[in-house]
């Protein structure tokens, strides 16, 4: 790196730099227009009193942020988002890992199972939400109809009303195919000879998983935890579609879900598009952004201590 810097004036280096920016240009344009400009503008607005109509907009400093921390309902959104994120991440990572373990070694129909278990992940979230709503509905839901007709339960259970969070978490099992693929790729990097040597030394399956497999794939587990955290904190549409309250046609997005599952993004959407409190909504989103940022940085800095690395350079 340092050597590169010294010869940066050479024609070769200049040509390289020109090529670099030529090929990076489309991304740079998109990045500036779609991310940098809106982020800066949004941050400024979050410190104003702007509503849907930009009349008498003025700078109010951190007033929206202070109001946000004083509002119990808003704060509860951060909490339920956090609870959902932790549970969703655990479910996704553990389920994906178990699927990968089942599929890692030779097995008849291995390709078929892999395709089928990944398949639900391809279905758009909006569709998944509706499929599960109709699956879980108390009177008309398929799950209850099957369970009642098999005499397993006497009458239909209102799953969504009993536990709105639980019904949303069912999607986490269904969409574990993504972690499965990551872990399958990770397991394929573990040299087979290591298992054989350990088996000869008398290590059982559990010991092989714990002492060979887990340490070697720990960077992938770590990656999966971080990514899953970032995505789950942004959960938005699920509570609207799996809303335990009866919903009418075309009212899906205007019916606020109960506080138990009113995630940060879902509430920010409601506050901005439904109540037109633009500035307050943006302040909410910015706090979420900071939470994600701080957690990710802390995670990468201190959470990675258990990640096995082959050499010091890699860190």
């Amino acid at each position, binding site marked *: *790196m340092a050597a590169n810097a010294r010869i940066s004036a050479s024609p070769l280096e200049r040509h390289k730099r020109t090529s670099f920016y030529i090929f990076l240009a489309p*991304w740079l344009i998109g990045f500036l227009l779609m991310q940098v400009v809106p982020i800066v503008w949004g941050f400024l607005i979050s410190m104003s009193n*702007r509503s849907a109509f930009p009349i008498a907009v003025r700078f109010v400093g951190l007033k929206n942020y202070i109001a946000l921390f004083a509002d119990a309902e808003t704060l509860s959104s951060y909490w339920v988002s956090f609870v959902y994120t932790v549970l969703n991440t655990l479910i996704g990572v553990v389920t994906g890992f178990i699927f990968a373990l089942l599929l890692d070694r030779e097995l008849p129909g291995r390709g078929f199972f892999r395709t089928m278990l*990944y398949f639900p992940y391809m279905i*758009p979230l909006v569709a998944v939400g*509706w499929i599960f709503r109709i699956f879980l509905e108390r009177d*008309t839901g398929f799950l209850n109809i099957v369970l009642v007709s098999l005499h397993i339960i006497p009458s239909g259970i209102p799953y969504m009303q009993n536990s709105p969070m639980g019904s949303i978490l069912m999607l986490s099992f269904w969409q574990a195919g993504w972690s499965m693929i990551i872990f399958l790729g990770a397991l394929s990097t573990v040299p087979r000879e290591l298992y054989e040597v350990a088996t000869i030394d008398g290590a059982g399956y559990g010991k092989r998983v714990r002492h060979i497999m887990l340490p070697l794939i720990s960077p992938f587990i770590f990656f999966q935890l971080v990514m899953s955290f*970032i995505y789950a904190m942004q959960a*938005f549409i699920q509570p609207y579609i799996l809303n335990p309250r009866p919903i009418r046609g075309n009212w899906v997005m205007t019916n606020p879900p109960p506080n138990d599952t009113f995630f940060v993004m879902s509430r920010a959407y409601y506050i901005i598009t439904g109540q037109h409190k633009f500035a307050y909504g943006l302040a909410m989103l910015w706090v979420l952004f900071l939470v994600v940022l701080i957690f990710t940085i802390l995670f990468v800095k201190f959470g990675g201590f258990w990640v096995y690395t082959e050499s010091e350079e890699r860190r």
Partner: protein
Amino acid sequence: MMTIQTRDRWSATLRFIALVIIVVIFFLPLVSMLVTSLKRMDELYRVPARVFPETPVWDNYVLAWTLVNFGKYLVNSIILTILYAVPAVMSSAFAGYAFSRFQVRESRAIFLVVLSTLMIPVMVTIMPLYMIMAKFQVTDQRGLWFVWGLAGIPFIIFLFRQFFSTIPASFEESARIDGAGRFRVFFSVMFPLVQTGLIVAAIFAFQWSWSEFLMPVLFLSDEKITLAVKVAMSYADQKENILYNVGMAGILYYTLPLVIVYFALQKRFVAGLLAGGLKG
């Protein structure tokens, strides 16, 4: 004591049985979708309920197409998907190529910026963008999808960087000695060698724009809105009662293009994900 072979066979059998059970459970919601889409509404509410419809009501599939102008929204979805996917794949491939081949002093820092965009919640950028565009009354623009595509997909940029890095530098050099310019080298030598990456990228871009809900619901008028939004808002009769059966038929139509593409390309898609995305 069991021999290793018999133990392996036992383990394979047990894993096979476990996987069959999991796949069956996983397909219950999909069976539910199919069965519901073939029932009459009054049949859904009948007590005691039956698992399968008395006579399949194929009319639901006709209604799903006619009750909302399905063809129009399908065309809208296809237009926006192409408008997004083409620049998204190209821009990501270009960026991946730049990061793998033209490493200058600041490349590493910029690459970190690309990765850190993963941490920005989508609404933090989309909501202000919506407010800016609403202010200038230019929201109802499909061109936005093109610009959105230019911003690329961080994961795909990473993937392309990995794929390009596996190609020996000598491939390009010989072309360059023959006098080919930057883009000639890229399109005639490098691009054909990353086909697997291209398939993965295209499927991701397709899946993303096909599933995207927030962007169309905020930016587009009913004339240009996509299937994702229409389907999410549900099918209802004139009294605003939600029609579950027709809705499920509509959801099936909406999901089908993704399913077809996935099953047609899944071998190369999964192989590409396993090969490129992970070794880094």
